[in-house]
């Protein structure tokens, strides 16, 4: 590409042309053709009349990823020692940041039983779909697991060692026999299996069933639960939490005086209210507004509707650990009777 090309009507602005070309000259877009092909073909295979046609057109080689990449992501470094900081010091980084946070699903308590809650964590950046899924799944293992202490994971250490993304399924290789056995005394194995399916689909940004294997053979039981050859994401209303906080993340350190919170909710939640409290005393409260989540974010949150607060002023608050809580009244779709559901994050105000 030549930054010095002259536009017929605009020959006096060569310098601006050079600046614009130079500004992105070090951006090397990663190859996404395979993903584009799979997404355009996936639409077709859902329509029966086109299914038998063009099977070979632009066939995508399945990508196999072994776990030798391990989990060396950004998130490892800050776990349990340094909290993420708002308005904190800078670090040297490349000109253009790459998006590398994944939506991970964990099990948490609600007033009417266990549900899946989503938490975002930084993961090793990659453009390879199978790696995306693997890196996200590996964060479900108990040695990493959720940052929010109100959540838990059912997956033991070393559960996930390889992922293969095929046209019609995601094959997940389980690295330990412990992942086949029951790991939870409360009988939440079904949610545990769904943890992996939700996380895999969110990482891939596409709806595909998961086939669990161990030693290259289909796993008949996973977390002590009998499973079929493929497990679909269970989209029934009782699986995910009716309100879920995305931002702030657990343990956020706020230094710049304001907080904007956002998250997701189920379609039947009418009102989302928030409170900020210190030692059980509410110091501020308000109502969140409904937003549509679009673009890449919508895939990470599997298309759930969103809510966000306006900017919350923290400048007058004493330093300390505050609990941010959102509460939604669910009018019946995800539970038999209208019930309140909530999610919380602990943040530190300095």
């Amino acid at each position, binding site marked *: *590409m030549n*930054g010095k*090309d002259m*536009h017929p*009507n605009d020959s006096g*602005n060569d*310098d*601006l042309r050079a*600046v*614009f*070309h*130079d*500004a*992105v*000259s070090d*951006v090397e877009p990663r190859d*996404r*053709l395979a993903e*584009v092909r799979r*997404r*355009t073909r996936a639409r*077709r295979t859902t329509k029966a009349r*086109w299914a038998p*046609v*063009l099977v070979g057109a*632009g066939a995508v080689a399945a990508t196999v990823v072994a776990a030798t990449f391990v989990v060396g992501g*950004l998130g490892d470094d800050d776990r349990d020692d340094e909290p*993420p*900081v*708002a*308005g*904190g010091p*800078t670090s040297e980084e490349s*000109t*253009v*940041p*790459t*998006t*590398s*946070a994944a*939506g991970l699903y964990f099990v948490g308590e609600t007033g009417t039983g266990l549900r899946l809650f989503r938490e*975002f964590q*930084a993961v090793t*950046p990659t453009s390879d779909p199978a790696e995306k899924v693997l890196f996200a799944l590996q964060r479900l293992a108990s040695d990493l697991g959720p940052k929010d202490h109100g959540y838990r994971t059912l997956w033991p250490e070393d559960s996930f060692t390889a992922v293969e993304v095929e046209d019609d399924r995601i094959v997940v290789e389980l690295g330990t026999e412990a992942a086949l056995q029951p790991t939870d005394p409360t009988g939440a194995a079904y949610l545990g299996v769904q943890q992996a399916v939700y996380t895999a689909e969110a990482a891939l940004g596409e709806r595909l069933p998961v086939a669990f294997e161990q030693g290259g053979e289909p796993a008949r039981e996973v977390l002590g639960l009998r499973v079929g050859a493929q497990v679909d994401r269970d989209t029934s209303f009782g699986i995910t939490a009716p309100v879920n906080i*995305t*931002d702030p*993340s657990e343990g*956020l350190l706020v230094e710049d005086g304001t907080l*904007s919170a*956002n998250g997701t909710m189920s379609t039947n939640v009418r009102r989302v209210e928030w409170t900020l409290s210190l030692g059980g005393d509410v110091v501020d409260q308000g109502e969140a507004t409904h937003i*549509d*989540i*679009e*673009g*890449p*974010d919508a*895939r*990470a*949150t599997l298309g759930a509707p*969103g809510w966000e607060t306006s900017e919350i002023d923290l400048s007058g608050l004493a330093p300390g650990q505050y609990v941010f809580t959102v509460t939604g009244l669910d009018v019946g779709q995800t539970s038999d009777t209208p019930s309140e559901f909530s999610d919380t994050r602990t943040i530190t105000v300095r």
Partner: protein
Amino acid sequence: MTAYAATTGIAPHPTWGVGVNEASPDATDARADADAAIEALYLAHWNQLVRLSVLLVHDQGMAEEIVQDALVAVHQKWDRLADHHKALAYLRQAVVNRSRSALRHRGVVTRYLARQQGPDVAPGADQPVLGDSRRRMVLDALQQLPRRQREVLALRYYLDLSEAEIAETLGISRGAVKSHASRGSATLRPILEGLGPDLRTDQ
């Protein structure tokens, strides 16, 4: 018109321009046309459109997602496109619109990452501004511009589109294009001049 301008203009792409705009007798042909067209658009314009989107949203990962989504969207609408020769114009428009909407709803992932990374620190006034940091400062300066000015400047100076093409892409008048362009460059110039003379010597 230079070779560069020719590949970004609205002229049909040689690998699929012929034939695909004729009515297909059945859905199978239409699908094959759409597949081939999207693949040709990808091969010819992927890098350039991702870079365009980086100029608008300043995030490579997000830009790749945006252009990918735009390609899938054009594929989805293929049968309903009035003029397949204009597919590149539709794609470009989808990229600009989606970049805008991604900025508006830049909630979840970016806020999380921004918190992890913290803000950039500008070098001191007496420091030479070179290479990577100069690029970053140009991108940062672009982000400070009003959205329309940023879009107009990127389409004009990165894609080399004419005023009429920019007006069509953004759905605004040519007069508006002109005024956004002149206000945008007026704001940008002093910032760029502050970055030093090496700006234009290493092209």
